[in-house]
């Protein structure tokens, strides 16, 4: 792979306007190279926050493609815009009062029943999630499956932006993951016991001792604890 350098310029079209940018830059960097200082459209710069979601026409296939601008290199001739926000309703819910069922999800997001199985959402996912597949799983009652299969979702909202049924897939998947985490997966086994012991003050004496211990004694104890690292 070649190094990042200032030569080798290629044309790209940001919001329709042509710029010539070094071909090794990411889309995000290319915007900056031509003088953008992001307010919207830039977040973690590491591919997990979804702020820099973008759609572009591929210069060879001429199809509409999607990307996270921080994760993708520019292509010669690409026409690209960012979609940093897409409007969706966010109905409130109280997780404590829910059940991990299709009906429950459908009550909060009734749009899910309108899916026409066109699969556009899947094509729009920059994380390569089988979006329509996850919707079908939920409709079949497989909340756990949808939770697992949507784990890479960065909630950028591109799926929703082209859904003819106006389904907020990314919000539905978050709900599925939460229902799974809360009601389907087993909880940490020892956690309740640990909390009881903490509440009962079982560790107070040990902690007091450590906090008042002579620093040299404490260091010896620390070194021993490090040497006796163990998986128990």
């Amino acid at each position, binding site marked *: *792979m*070649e*190094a*990042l350098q*200032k030569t080798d310029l290629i044309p790209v079209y940001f919001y329709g306007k042509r710029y010539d940018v070094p071909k*090794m*830059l*990411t889309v995000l*960097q290319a915007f*900056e*190279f031509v*003088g*953008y*200082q992001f*307010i*919207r459209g*830039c*977040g*973690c*710069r*590491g591919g*997990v*926050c979804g*702020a820099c979601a973008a759609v572009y026409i591929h210069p060879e296939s001429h199809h509409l493609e999607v990307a996270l601008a921080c994760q993708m*290199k520019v292509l010669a001739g690409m026409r690209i815009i960012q979609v940093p926000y897409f409007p969706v309703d*966010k109905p409130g*819910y109280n*997780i404590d009062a829910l059940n991990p069922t299709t009906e429950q999800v459908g009550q909060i997001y009734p749009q899910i029943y309108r899916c026409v199985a066109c699969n556009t959402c899947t094509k729009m996912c920059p*994380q390569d999630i089988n979006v329509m597949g996850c919707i079908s799983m939920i409709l079949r009652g497989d909340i756990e499956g949808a939770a697992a299969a949507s*784990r*890479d979702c*960065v*909630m950028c909202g591109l799926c929703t932006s082209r859904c003819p049924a106006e389904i907020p897939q990314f919000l539905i998947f*978050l709900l599925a*993951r*939460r229902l799974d*985490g*809360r009601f389907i*997966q*087993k909880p*940490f*086994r*020892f*956690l*309740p016991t*640990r*909390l009881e012991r903490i509440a009962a003050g079982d*560790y107070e004496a040990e*902690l007091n001792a*450590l*906090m008042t211990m002579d620093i040299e004694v*404490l260091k010896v104890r*620390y070194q021993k*604890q*490090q*040497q006796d*690292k*163990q*998986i*128990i």
Partner: protein
Amino acid sequence: MPYPESMRASIKKLEETRESRLNQKIPILSIDEKNQLLKEFHPDYRPGVHRELKAGVNKGDMAVVELANLLEARSTVDPNSVDLSKIELEVDTLVVGAGGAGLTAAIFSCDEGASVALATKLRLGDSNTTMAEGGINAAISPGDSPSIHYLDTMGGGNFTNIPELVRALSTDSPLAIKWLEDLGVPFDRDPDSDLPLPLLAGGHSRPRVCSVGDYTGMSIIQVLRAEVENRPIRVMEFSAVVELILDDKGQCAGAVLFDLLTRIPQVVKAKSVIIATGGIGRLHIQGFPTTNHYGATADGLIVGYRAGAKLGYLDSIQFHPTGTAYPDQLLGLLVTEVSRSRGAQLVDVNGERYINELQTRDCVASANVRQVIGRKKGITTPSGMQGVWLDTPLIDIIHGEGTVQKSYTHLYHRFKRYDIDFSKEPILIYPAQHYQNGGIITDDIGRSNVPNLYAAGEAAGGVHGRNRLGGNSLSDLFVFGRRAGIDAARRAPEIESGRLSLNHVFEYANALETAGSLTEASSPILLPDYRFEKVFPKFNQ
């Protein structure tokens, strides 16, 4: 072929030594040996990287130069241009920053009965928290305990931590896990024991990292964001704090926010303000690349300091041992410590190991610098960046084929886009600026020395001392975000704010001018500037 020929020769050596390295044991350094290594090679110890602060509460203290220059700059807003009589919003608790600490503080303050506004610079949830890969610590296994966690943390910080804060951290973090679990954060569990995965992170003597694949932070943020949206919390996105407001009694009484989209300043009056603005990675201390998100520009420290808040550990930065060194497009991005927990080794140009990979980060990062700069055994990329190998294929060799792909979906995709399959080939790494050890000094409920001003999360300092253990930051966010949020709400009924004022901003600028130390800059800077040539990375070592 992903790696250029010039780098492949070294990969070949690494492959040749792999088998003999598999069972090689490298002992843990003694405290003295470690201190010696830090002195020689930790970037914090380089000459000229700190300078003395000339005015304010920390006058006389040393701070990293980049931060000192902003602490001693003029305000980004002209205080005279702000009309304090025009109050946009009045609440009990104003939380600034919507990462893990801010979202938590807002939720708990609201549930405790306070009216809450949550102002944040970018979108709700855009933060360092969302990038956390490895996990969150809590002593929730039978073989572990809060006191073992306490001692690991104190030692990890070289015993410079504030003990009361560490105690709060180690006793409250199981509660944080319970809270997150009940909210539906889908933590990984060891299927045999229903405990956290049996992995040791650097400097920890027991497994205690609760993870969600390598998407831990993102997963938590998505859930907490929804919880904020489910409550009557006034969310203000793209609203950056540019100054705190004090009243005539010297209490914190609100903040001036700057709407980044309309460029209009807004006055929010509040009985308490909780600063949860996170870290300073985007200052690129010493020119290092950073693992941090776009908004990590130290704003909370700047405005807090002008308002009289005491800061601490300003000369102490955490450099993560394994920032990405190749390809250039990914420079600085984090490769999670959990890769080393699963057996990935650090290896130099000759295919040799040089440090026990599961020691604390300050120590391992220093060893990486030593190998590259001191011993000249680094690997050089076509751009001139140098690094050492993280031998990640060991993960599948030790834990079975497919482990990398299953356990590191996020990182796997990230490198695959550049044709690097790190289940088969190593990753080139070098230390990157990762975490601000210091920050606003608080007590164990997040109160600063300024009445009604709190700090929580990375913007606060003390709990981690001069070196934070992996996974302890996420615990810190929920422990202190919760404590601060609840305390602010409970105290709200008894707080009477006086007349609002920005006099402290003038006074501090005057003090700087008198000391001859007012810099050219203005601060807080709010957004980093990568325009034009600045987009090209620097390759400082």
